[in-house]
């Protein structure tokens, strides 16, 4: 069976990608699926060769047939997203604001509005040595979605099955919305990365409740645990009261910043953060293998 392990966090910037890229190198025979598509950055850490590109077709957008439009401008009035503006006394659709809801088409007296889909980005399969990466890039103004994440995960799973990979590491979307849920759903295990800040603790509670609703087994990693010992203690107490296992703690380490700036894997530096991540890897191996 292929192990699907998602690394998520309620709060962004807690260290998901740093942990994920390191684990990707430590676990052999792994595919990394970068599902944080709003800020896809996993690929920056690897020196990959592009293997294959796919088109991502986004949501539908409104189009006006000016041959039929009578310029009554009712659509401008009714659009809830302010996506239709007046230009030269005619309605004009700002496709960045259009949510594709269909209201304008259904109220247009001249039936001049229709919908079509457009390419909203691309997703890729890349390789560095024996590490395979699936990641996506959206065009400006497009936002990430459960749909795109589902497609990235689908490609990763098909590759894993056809090329006999043991594991898919999902670098998840932060937050608790559609994108985070699409990163977690149907995985075998989840690692929730938090940090010792108030927002880290607050958002940890929120992502825990979502992960529990989806009934996925999970652990917590506390990053930058030595930033604020009283909050780290609160996180530990919270985890204890909820019966959540803490896989490990990573200290605040400036080498991580250096590694990111130099676009390198943290494993390439001999530093405290690296050592903690290797310990987490050892613990994790015991849990899932």
């Amino acid at each position: 069976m292929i192990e699907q392990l998602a690394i998520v966090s309620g709060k962004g910037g807690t260290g998901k990608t740093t942990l994920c890229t390191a684990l990707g190198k430590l676990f052999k025979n792994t595919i990394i699926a970068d599902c944080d598509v709003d800020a896809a950055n996993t690929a920056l850490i690897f020196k990959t060769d592009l293997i294959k590109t796919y088109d991502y077709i986004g949501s539908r957008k409104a189009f006006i047939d000016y041959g039929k439009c009578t310029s009554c401008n009712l659509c401008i009035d009714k659009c809830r997203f302010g996506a239709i503006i007046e230009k030269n006394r005619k309605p004009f659709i700002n496709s960045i604001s259009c949510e594709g809801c269909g209201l304008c088409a259904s109220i247009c007296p001249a039936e001049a509005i229709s919908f079509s889909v457009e390419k909203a980005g691309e997703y890729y399969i890349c390789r560095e040595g024996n590490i395979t990466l699936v990641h996506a890039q959206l065009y400006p103004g497009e936002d990430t979605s459960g749909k795109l994440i589902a497609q990235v995960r689908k490609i990763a799973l098909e590759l894993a099955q056809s090329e006999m990979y043991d594991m898919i590491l999902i670098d998840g979307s932060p937050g608790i919305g559609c994108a985070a849920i699409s990163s977690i759903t149907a995985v075998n295990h989840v690692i929730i990365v938090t940090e010792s800040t108030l927002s880290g603790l607050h958002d940890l509670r929120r992502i825990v409740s979502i992960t529990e609703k989806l009934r996925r087994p999970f652990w917590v990693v506390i990053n930058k645990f030595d930033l604020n010992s009283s909050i780290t203690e609160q996180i530990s107490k919270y985890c204890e009261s909820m019966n959540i296992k803490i896989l490990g703690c990573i200290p605040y380490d400036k080498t991580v910043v250096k590694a990111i700036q130099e676009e390198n894997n943290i494993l390439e530096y001999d530093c405290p953060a690296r050592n903690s991540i290797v310990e987490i890897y050892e613990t994790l191996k015991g849990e899932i293998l």
Partner: protein
Amino acid sequence: MKIGLCAKQEIKSSQVDDRFARAAFFVIYDSSTSEYIFLQNPFDVEHGAGPKVIEFFAEKGVTVLIAPTLGPNAQKAAQMAGMSTYEQNQSSVEENIKAFLEKHKI
């Protein structure tokens, strides 16, 4: 009674799909006629697929759902539609239905 399921392929021996709203196919099994209907997932939406799929099943008269774990919005929608939901086993569509019918002595 109509039972809704998610499938990877269009056959009753197909594995159930482990994604709910983004499953490849939906299945509606009618226990009074023992008939299966397979439908390609019509929802190619970016957000909010879960509740749409619940609505889709409800409109087709489905009252029982055997599915992967539902997200929070799909759970709420299923409750509002008065649908009973059961967690699927990692087996085929056919086996899931059989297990459900035996368990509930239908």
